[in-house]
């Protein structure tokens, strides 16, 4: 920190003052009582005192009309920032003002703060250990601290600094600042090397703000990027593995499901097959059973007929016996009747003998009539009974014929049904064949359509491939152009860069340039040349690089003013160069210029520039060129990448086209297959089947093929049924024919005409016979009654004769009746015999007409066929429920459902398996393991790096802490340079000053004597002043802060004063020193005194200020006694 300018108004004795201070040693001199110390006081007021406080009241001007005290101090802080503080110390609140402004260049200031904030900011800025204003417990009066006293100590209390320390500071900022400033002095070289190494490591890892470095090349970024990249890769692989696992699991599940569905389907198919087989077997069994029953019935019918024939024959034989017996008995009865007739005639003779009367004769006539009638009636009865029996037999035969006809009708109906069934089955078969053809056409159309679409895709793929390839070529061309431009630019940049010095050299050139500028700036101070001509001569004069006289003939006196240098050429006789400034600085400048000529100019010349700034500009231009180069290459790479991508896309399209070309060829083949089929209709079918049309169509074809097979089976069954019906019909036809012939024979025997309704005629005949029988019976009763009445009319004799006659007649009648009866019986037996013979003949003929061997063969076959089912578990399980067509239909539905499910599962599995080509499988799992290992390793490395970085930082911090907390001794640090100077000052008498850690002077080391604080106490006032001044100067030097010394060496002898003069100039090279003195010769040479208000000497490093010229005090100015 250094002061630039102080402006004081109405401040104690000063009415006004305006002092501009140099950056090095400033000697403000003037007589006593001029107000020089007030200047120091004004500086303290500006920096430390708040307007409006009691302390401020001390600044009131000595003359009441002077206005409010006002101080304006401009200073530059350690960061070269300008601050301008302006304080008005008026008594009233309105007059007490503070204002702080800041500037980067010392010209344009901007407001920073005002009021109380000004002092807060200043104290923070100074870091002198003075607490913020107004703090609780803050001391009254002039705020002070160890550093405030060191740097702005008052004239009256020079040596008091030796008794002061940082312990009394109200804030720690002073100690902190001292610790930092003195740290460099405190370090043990060993410790310093360690700290330096640790700091290097920390600097490599961390920014000045303590953050981990994140810039390019940062190890943290590299490690973090590696972890991030590997983490991303790991995440990607994890996703890949998860995806793969999910896909594989899905495929596995679907495959298991598919297998299960296949098993279920197989089971359903097996069940269906079993059911169909069982159903077919059951149907076959039923048919076999029916066939067996029919064959059995047929044979039984034949057996029955044979029995009937045998029975008829037996009956005929029996009847033959009856007829024969009846004939014998008729013969016997005829003989008996003849004898009875004879007896009758005898009895009649006796009767006639007994009666002899007409009445009796009449009665006899009547009775004879009645008896005749009765005999006729008996004959009628017999005949009626015969007719009745014949009609009944014919009726039975007619019934048999009817039954046979009905059987035939049923057989024919069955045949018709069977034929109809066969035709139906054939129609179903035809339909199934049509359906199958349609299903196959759908498949063919779908395949053709897909192939056609593939062919179109192939064309589109070819177009895309051409487009992508064209794009790729364009990108390649663009990339080549960019690369060519990049190569050209790079050559240009390389050539240009080859002419430029490297950065380190550039930096050295710039530094050299800067140092020359600084060295040139440190020269000067101005001088004048007086040329007195005694004759005419050609004269060339330049001052500070500007020609002021060129070729002018000198005649007389010429005074030239220059600041830094001048050259004078007098004709060809003499060239004089005059350079201002101290010799060492000039020599330094010359060395620098020589270095410039050797080290910088060749490079600048080579680079074609004159100044380092131009180098920078060229470098900037090259950087811009590099950036452009990078951009061009990036563009080229981008175009190459895009070209490669387009080429890859084209290749992919080519591959797709190649793959699809086969489909195109297939399309033409399929199209030929489709022929002239209705493609619109087929398209509708395919569209209706949806995306899974192929599977659906294949399933449809399979279903239709099965339907066709089923229809063929059904047709076969129907054909078999029709053949069976045909056989039954033929059989029934034969039976019907034979039964009809028998019935017609019987009807013919009854006298019925052929073709008449035999049933009605037979009923009529039967009824007539029964009526006639009833009539005959009634008449017989009447005749018998009349005969009884006749009988009752005879006399006893007569009656007896009659009775004899009657008995004879009765005997005769009985014999006759017996004979007639026998004859009737005989006739009836004969008729019966004839009928029986006829029936037996008819039956025999029917029996002989039947194919018994065929029937028996069929029965045997039917038995054999049926016997198969006896051991068939499908149809012969006892108690097994019958299998119906519904069962088969249900099983078919289950199978269809299972097939559908299977197809669905297969489609899903196929789709899922397609996804397997997109996933990584075991490979990606394997890669994941390796990637995880790599990630863990990168994390470990990152952690290790962080631990290492943190370890270095911890080490650095620990070293700083131990340094800070007393392992280094500020007193010892400061004491070293102070002691060194003290020894030099005292020519070795005092070898050292001991300071405690708070910088309080503890003791003085005296050569060859034991150190003692007593020595310090025993020092002379002058020496104590000198020790105090050395201490203050050293502190200021370390802090690089301005220091004000207000006549602090008044008790110093000339020799030591000279030493101090040199020391002050040395210190002032790096630190602003303001010496206020009334004895300027103690610090200045006789010619150094200012000719004006201020004078800069030693290249500006020393400024001499005549206080009398810059300070105007109230009242008359003091005068020098010189």
């Amino acid at each position, binding site marked *: 920190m250094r002061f630039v300018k102080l402006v004081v108004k109405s401040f104690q004795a000063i009415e006004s003052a305006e002092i501009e201070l140099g950056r090095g040693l400033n000697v403000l001199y003037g007589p006593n009582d001029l107000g020089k110390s007030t200047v120091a006081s004004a500086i303290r007021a500006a920096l430390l005192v708040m307007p409006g406080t009691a302390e401020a009241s001390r600044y009131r001007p000595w003359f009441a009309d002077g206005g409010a005290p006002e101080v304006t101090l401009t200073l530059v802080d350690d960061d070269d920032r300008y601050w301008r503080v302006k304080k008005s110390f008026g008594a009233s609140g309105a007059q007490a003002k503070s204002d702080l402004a800041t500037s980067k260049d010392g010209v344009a200031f901007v407001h920073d703060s005002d009021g109380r904030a000004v002092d807060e900011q200043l104290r923070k800025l100074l870091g002198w250990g003075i607490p913020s204003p107004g703090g609780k417990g803050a001391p009254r009066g002039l705020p002070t601290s160890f550093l405030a006293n060191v740097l702005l100590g008052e004239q009256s209390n020079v040596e008091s600094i030796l008794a002061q320390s940082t312990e009394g500071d109200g804030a720690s900022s002073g100690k902190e600042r001292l610790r930092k400033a003195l740290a460099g002095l405190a370090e043990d070289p060993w410790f310093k090397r360690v700290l330096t190494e640790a700091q290097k490591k920390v600097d490599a890892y961390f920014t000045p703000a303590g953050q981990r470095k994140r810039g390019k090349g940062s190890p943290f970024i590299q490690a973090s990027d590696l972890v991030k990249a590997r983490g991303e890769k790991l995440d990607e692989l994890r996703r890949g593995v998860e995806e793969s696992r999910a896909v594989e699991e899905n495929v596995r599940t679907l495959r298991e499901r598919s297998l299960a569905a296949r098993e279920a389907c197989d089971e359903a198919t097996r069940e269906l097959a079993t059911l169909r087989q069982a159903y077919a077997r059951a149907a076959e069994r039923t048919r076999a059973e029916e066939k067996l029953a029919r064959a059995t019935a047929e044979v039984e019918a034949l057996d029955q007929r044979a029995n009937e024939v045998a029975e008829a024959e037996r009956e005929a034989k029996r009847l033959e016996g009856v007829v024969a017996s009846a004939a014998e008995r008729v013969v016997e009865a005829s003989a008996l009747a003849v004898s009875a007739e004879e007896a009758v005639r005898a009895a009649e003779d006796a009767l006639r003998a007994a009666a002899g009367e007409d009445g009796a004769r009449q009665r006899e006539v009547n009775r004879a009539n009645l008896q005749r009638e009765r005999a006729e009636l008996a004959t009628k009865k017999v005949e009626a009974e015969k007719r009745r029996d014949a009609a009944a037999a014919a009726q039975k035969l007619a019934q048999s014929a009817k039954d046979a006809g009905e059987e035939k009708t049923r057989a024919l109906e069955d045949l018709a049904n069977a034929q109809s069934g066969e035709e139906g089955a054939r129609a179903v078969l035809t339909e199934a064949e049509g359906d199958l053809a349609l299903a196959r056409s759908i498949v063919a159309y779908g395949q053709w359509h897909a192939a056609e679409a593939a062919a179109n895709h192939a064309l589109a793929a070819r177009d895309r491939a051409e487009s992508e390839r064209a794009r790729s070529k364009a990108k390649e061309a663009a990339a080549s152009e960019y690369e060519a431009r990049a190569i050209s630019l790079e050559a240009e940049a390389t050539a240009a860069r080859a002419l430029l010095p490297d950065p380190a050299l550039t930096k050295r050139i710039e530094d050299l340039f800067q140092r020359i500028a600084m060295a040139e700036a440190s020269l000067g101070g101005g001088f004048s040349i007086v040329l007195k001509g005694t004759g005419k001569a050609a004269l060339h004069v330049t001052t500070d690089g500007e020609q002021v006289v060129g070729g002018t003939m000198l005649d007389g006196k010429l005074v030239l003013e220059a600041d830094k240098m001048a050259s004078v050429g007098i004709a060809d006789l003499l060239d004089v160069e005059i350079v201002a400034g101290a010799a060492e600085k000039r020599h330094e400048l010359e060395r620098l210029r020589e270095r410039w000529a050797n080290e910088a100019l060749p490079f600048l010349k080579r680079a074609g520039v004159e100044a380092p700034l131009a180098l920078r500009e060229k470098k900037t231009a090259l950087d811009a060129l590099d950036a452009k180069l990078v951009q061009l290459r990036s563009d080229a790479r981008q175009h190459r990448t895009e070209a490669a991508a387009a080429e890859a896309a084209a290749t992919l399209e080519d591959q797709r086209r190649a793959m699809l070309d086969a489909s195109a060829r297939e399309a033409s083949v399929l199209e030929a297959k489709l022929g002239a089929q209705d493609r619109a209709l087929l398209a509708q079918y395919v569209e209706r089947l949806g995306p899974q049309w192929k599977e659906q169509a294949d399933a449809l074809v399979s279903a239709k093929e099965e339907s066709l097979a089923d229809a063929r089976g059904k047709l076969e069954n129907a054909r078999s049924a029709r053949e069976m019906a045909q056989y039954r019909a033929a059989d029934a036809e034969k039976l019907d024919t034979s039964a009809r012939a028998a019935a017609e024979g019987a009807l013919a025997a009854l006298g019925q005409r052929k073709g008449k309704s035999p049933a009605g005629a037979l009923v009529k005949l039967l009824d007539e016979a029964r009526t006639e029988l009833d009539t005959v019976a009634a008449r017989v009763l009447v005749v018998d009654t009349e005969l009884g009445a006749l009988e009752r009319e005879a006399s006893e004799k007569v009656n007896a004769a009659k009775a004899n006659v009657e008995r004879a007649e009765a005997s005769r009648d009985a014999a006759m009746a017996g004979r007639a009866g026998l004859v009737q019986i005989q006739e009836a037996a004969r008729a019966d015999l004839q009928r029986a013979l006829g029936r037996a003949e008819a039956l025999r003929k029917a029996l002989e007409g039947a194919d018994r061997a065929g029937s028996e063969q069929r029965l045997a076959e039917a038995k054999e066929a049926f016997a198969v089912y006896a051991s068939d578990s499908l149809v012969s399980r006892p108690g097994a429920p019958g299998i119906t067509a519904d069962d088969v239909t249900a099983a078919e539905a289950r199978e269809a459902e299972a097939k559908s499910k299977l197809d669905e599962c297969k489609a899903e599995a196929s789709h899922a398996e397609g996804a397997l080509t997109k996933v990584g499988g075991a490979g990606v799992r394997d890669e994941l393991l390796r990637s995880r290992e790599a990630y863990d390793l990168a994390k470990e490395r990152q952690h290790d790096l962080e*631990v290492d970085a943190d370890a270095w930082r911890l080490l650095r911090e620990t070293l700083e802490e131990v340094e800070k907390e007393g392992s280094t001794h500020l007193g010892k640090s400061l004491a070293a340079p102070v002691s060194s100077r003290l020894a030099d000052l005292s020519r070795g008498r005092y070898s050292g000053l001991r300071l405690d850690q708070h910088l309080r002077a503890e003791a003085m080391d005296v050569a060859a004597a034991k150190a003692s604080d007593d020595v310090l106490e025993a020092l002379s006032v002058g020496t104590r002043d000198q020790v105090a001044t050395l201490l203050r100067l050293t502190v200021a030097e370390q802090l690089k802060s301005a220091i004000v010394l207000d006549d602090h060496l008044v008790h110093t002898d000339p020799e030591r004063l000279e030493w101090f003069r040199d020391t002050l100039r040395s210190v002032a090279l790096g630190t602003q020193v303001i010496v206020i003195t009334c004895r300027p010769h103690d610090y200045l040479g006789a010619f150094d005194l200012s000719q004006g208000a201020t004078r800069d000497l030693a290249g500006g490093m020393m400024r001499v200020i005549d206080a009398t010229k810059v300070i105007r005090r109230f009242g008359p100015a003091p005068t020098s006694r010189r």
Partner: protein
Amino acid sequence: MSPAPEDDVVLKLLHTADWHLGRRFPGFVREDAERKLTRARVDVLERIFGLAERYEVDAVLCAGDLFDVPSPLPEWWEPLVEQLVKRNWALRPVFLLPGNHDPLLPDSIWARGSKLRNALPPWVHVVDASPLEVPLVGNAVLYAVPCTSKAGQRDPTELIPKRAAGDDRIRIGMVHGSTFDMKDCQTDFPISRDAAIDRGLDYLAIGDTHGFRFVPAERREPPTVYPGAPEPTAFDEKDAGKVALVFVNRRRKVTVQPEAVATWTWEERHIATMAELRDLRARTDLDRRVLRLRVEMCVPAPEYEEAERLLEDLEGTVAKHGRVGVLQLERAGLVLETSSIDVYCKDFPDVLRSAVERLREQANTEDPARAKVAERALFHLYRLGRKAS
């Protein structure tokens, strides 16, 4: 005893798999290490094909995963082509089988028309049919089934027809996939352990796992063999680094002979004492080792420094080769013994000893992270202090 005529070998095969050309090894941080291991996969081809020539085999069967990815860069397939082209084996066919790492995909290296396919000699056959059936010498026939995806659930051997009645040819099968006999095996391309028997094969050449073994381990007839990777790829691979030489006699009896071809031996070591570490450093066989080294020991500062030096010797630096061919170092277990650190720092200046004491206190805190940082800082201080003295 002289062998019978029917014992004459009529077919000789070299069976290899799992080259994994182009495989990267990100687990090895140093690029040169990773490069060595990646390059080793290419270098081993010379030895494999040289072996085939030395034994005059009738055919070379390469059973999948020959590349690590389906579409490797030319730098990985060009050396293979170079190796094959220079052989001129018109009578020794080579069969290259796509595996699950490099499946036969439309855009893969194995696809018809690919640059690789175009560059291969005519006696090199890429298996691109399922199955590929090719007659071999000695009345033999090869059935090979490629992987057509990276993952699959079907047993590829199911695509090999069963031996028909009366077929007395030597039947060789070649597929790539996992058998069920391994613990925790994945089910990608599952291969039934009895596939050779079911399909009537006299030898089933398979690839996938990286160690040489028979499947199942105890069965030799008919043999089902994984030859393993010719160069190991991981530390846990047992019996890797081999190919299988297969001899078949007239009676169709098969003899399998493993042959080592690897350059690198992968080894894992655990170091718990300085003596072990010194012994390891003294070994002379480390230059062809891929060594995973886990250091777990707590040592005082001088030994810690020595351990650091020994580990640097083993691993190498940017400027010098390490003694180990490829080192994967896990040194988190190397711990500085801090209780005696002050003994080794007693000649340090006070200020440094104060720092040592402070860091030692922190190294003994219960927070392991802080303790680790402090321990490292302590070691840095120890080393810097000694160096600065």
